[in-house]
């Protein structure tokens, strides 16, 4: 019955790991060939792989794990998916119903444990509810603000036979998220936009979640107005980075031009982003002089941290369409003169060249490595995943995305170990594409075992490690906040990544000098197997620009400034308690 429901939901790949409490489902898997099961090496990996799969295809990712430790291992991935609004259905096995609550072998309170880290969850006690619940789970996962849904199925229910409910008869009783925005609010919003003197679009992952149509509409609206646009980490690719209206990413490690424009704007058009603390910095100094329009499918994201003037609850794709319509119907015109002055200011900030760094020819600068990686892959069909740390921020700054669904990173939760399994999931969905995990040497060890999955299924993922021998991001904060006392942030006793790759039946490549980088990257691209690329980079490089915690957007630290100041003195006492 489980497989029938998956078939009816159009699922063709499932990421999982077997165990006693899901054996009946595994037995069914054995007796069919339309549904491809990818055996991971750790349940966390199954969830991240499903996330990569979902994020790169727009489909719901599906996970199958056993009870007890299988379910608890999945918790990090579920939380990650909840924070980043990724649609997943995770089926967990459970001990038979009559044993629930008895501390049975491999029993855990899965619905209890996963309640706060899922959008919704179910324990199915009656086989006659099973199909309906599964269909509902897919509906809930993908509708409204997407998220992970757990369906916990006791073993006796898996064995039982019952009545199957068709998809069409599985309407949810109460859950009906809004899609279309309020017309009056939209009319008011476009008026405000047209009268703006210093406007900015601030967009986020919601646009990606709303599908490719939303990105198209966004491009149309942004080009029609000629306004500048920036985006969060999660929204990269919704608007092409090669376009002249693009200011780069905003936020803690965003560009000087994006953050200053956010600070000084008079009208902020926020679409599918949520004023997260990495974006706003100090709240009382966040864009103090602007009127704010906020489009979000989740009402609870509106007015949560920042007061907005025109809230619009709806699906970005619909609301953007409505905005375009309203703009055209009213025949609105932008204030060309003001806009020209505004762009003049922005160009001034751009001229600051905030991403510049000091090139060296004895060691590879991490920024340079990514510039070369981008240059040598830009004409390819490429998907990027990342781990978490400095390398992640550099990847966001130096790899440029022109299309949505090409960039998979753990934003909300910041989960080290996301990148390799996510790359596995992406490669499963796009077997012929180039899938690269931009990694740090510390993060990558958290889920390294998924190399074994890549080997098993001939998934030629490329793990591009910016190996600085430090938990660089931790070290950077220790420099900023803790007098450069590097407490446990040095990556001791690292494995030989080249040998490690070979041990996993992949190919290892090492680059140590800038002069050899291009050839080695080309070699990596040409290798039809999983590759671990150990790119030895400058150990001391830090990630700038940066809004120090406790500061506002117009108070950024820039790389070349910091070199002259003592880095330990740039964060105020109050800023130090923040994360």
């Amino acid at each position, binding site marked *: 019955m489980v497989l029938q429901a998956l078939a009816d939901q159009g699922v063709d790949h499932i990421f999982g790991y077997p165990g006693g409490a899901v054996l009946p489902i595994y037995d069914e898997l054995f007796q069919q060939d339309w549904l491809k099961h990818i055996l991971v090496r750790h349940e966390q990996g199954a969830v991240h792989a499903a996330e990569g799969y979902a994020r790169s295809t727009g489909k719901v990712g599906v996970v199958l794990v056993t009870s007890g430790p299988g379910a608890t291992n999945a918790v990090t991935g579920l939380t990650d998916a909840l924070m980043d609004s990724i649609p997943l259905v995770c089926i967990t096995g459970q001990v038979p119903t009559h044993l629930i609550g008895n501390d049975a072998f491999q029993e855990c309170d899965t619905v209890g444990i996963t309640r706060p880290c899922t959008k919704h969850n179910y324990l199915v006690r009656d086989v006659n509810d099973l199909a309906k619940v599964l269909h509902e789970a897919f509906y809930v996962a993908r509708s409204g603000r997407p998220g992970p849904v757990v369906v916990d199925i006791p073993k006796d229910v898996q064995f039982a036979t019952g009545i199957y409910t068709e998809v069409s008869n599985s309407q949810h009783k*109460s859950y009906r998220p809004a899609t279309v925005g309020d017309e009056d609010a939209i009319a008011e919003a476009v008026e405000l936009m047209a009268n703006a003197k210093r406007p900015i679009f601030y967009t986020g992952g919601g646009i990606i979640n709303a599908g490719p149509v939303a990105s198209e509409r966004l491009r149309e609206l942004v080009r029609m107005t000629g306004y500048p646009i920036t985006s969060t980490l999660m929204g990269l690719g919704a608007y092409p980075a090669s376009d002249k209206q693009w200011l780069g990413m905003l936020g803690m490690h965003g560009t000087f031009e994006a953050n200053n424009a956010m600070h000084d704007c008079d009208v902020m058009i926020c679409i599918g982003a949520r004023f997260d603390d990495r974006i706003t910095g100090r709240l009382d100094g966040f864009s103090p002089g602007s009127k704010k329009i906020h489009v979000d499918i989740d009402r609870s994201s509106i007015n949560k941290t920042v007061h907005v003037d025109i809230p619009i609850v709806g699906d970005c794709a619909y609301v953007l369409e409505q905005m375009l319509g309203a703009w055209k119907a009213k025949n609105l015109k932008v204030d060309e003169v003001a806009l020209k002055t505004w762009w003049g200011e922005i160009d001034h900030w751009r001229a600051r060249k905030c991403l510049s760094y000091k090139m060296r020819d004895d060691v590879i600068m991490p920024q340079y490595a990514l510039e070369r990686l981008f240059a040598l892959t830009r004409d390819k069909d490429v998907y990027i995943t990342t781990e978490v740390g400095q390398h992640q921020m550099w990847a966001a700054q130096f790899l440029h995305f022109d299309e949505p669904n090409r960039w998979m990173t753990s934003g909300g939760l910041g989960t080290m170990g996301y990148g390799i399994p996510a790359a596995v999931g992406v490669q499963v969905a796009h077997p012929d594409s180039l899938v690269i995990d931009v990694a740090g040497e510390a993060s990558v060890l958290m889920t390294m075992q998924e190399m074994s999955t890549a080997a098993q299924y001939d998934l030629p993922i490329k793990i591009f490690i910016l190996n600085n021998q430090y938990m660089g991001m931790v070290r950077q904060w220790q420099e900023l906040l803790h007098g450069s006392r590097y407490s446990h942030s040095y990556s001791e006793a690292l494995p030989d990544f080249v040998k490690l790759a070979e041990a996993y039946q992949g190919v290892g490549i090492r680059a140590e000098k800038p002069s050899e980088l291009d050839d080695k990257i080309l070699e990596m691209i040409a290798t039809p197997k999983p590759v671990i690329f150990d790119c030895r980079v400058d150990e001391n490089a830090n990630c700038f620009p940066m809004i120090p915690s406790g500061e506002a957007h117009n108070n950024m630290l820039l790389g070349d400034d910091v070199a002259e100041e003592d880095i330990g003195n740039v964060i105020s006492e109050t800023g130090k308690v923040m994360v």
Partner: protein
Amino acid sequence: MSKPGSAYPLEKTEQKTETHTMSVLVDNEPGVLARVIGLFAGRGYNIESLTVSETEHEAHLSRITIVTTGTPMVIEQIKSQLDRLVPIHTVIDLTVLGQSLERELAMVKVAGKGEKRAEAARLAESFSAVVIDDSPEHFVFEITGEQSRIEEFVVAMQPLGLVEVCRTGLAALARGPERM
């Protein structure tokens, strides 16, 4: 870099807090209450009072009445966060609607003899409390009414041998003929 600032809204905001009564219609399915309570605990919202009971057996609906306090922004958040939970049908802020009907029931146990006992009985009568259990040494009163009245009653019983109190928490409905 002198004034305190925050990447997180760490400091307590100076905004005034308000008390609101919300009525929440939910599917009567296992775990709904845990979801609601978990939401309040996880996000640090206050619960002053919470009552829940199935109200429409056929439709599998329960009604949860929550009294909570917070700044206007937090109150808005609570409503949106509740609304976001999948098994929740509607969330109504009765305080915003205004003039809703609010009642609570309490049982009040008072022990004593002689003059104090007689005084307790007299007071109870004036509060329209009903005796539901008694002996020469004690009374258990039942009182229904607005919360402020119950509080008054409890205070009045304090010097007369108050032993313990059990309160149901608030039940509330909007006035008028409409359904929520």
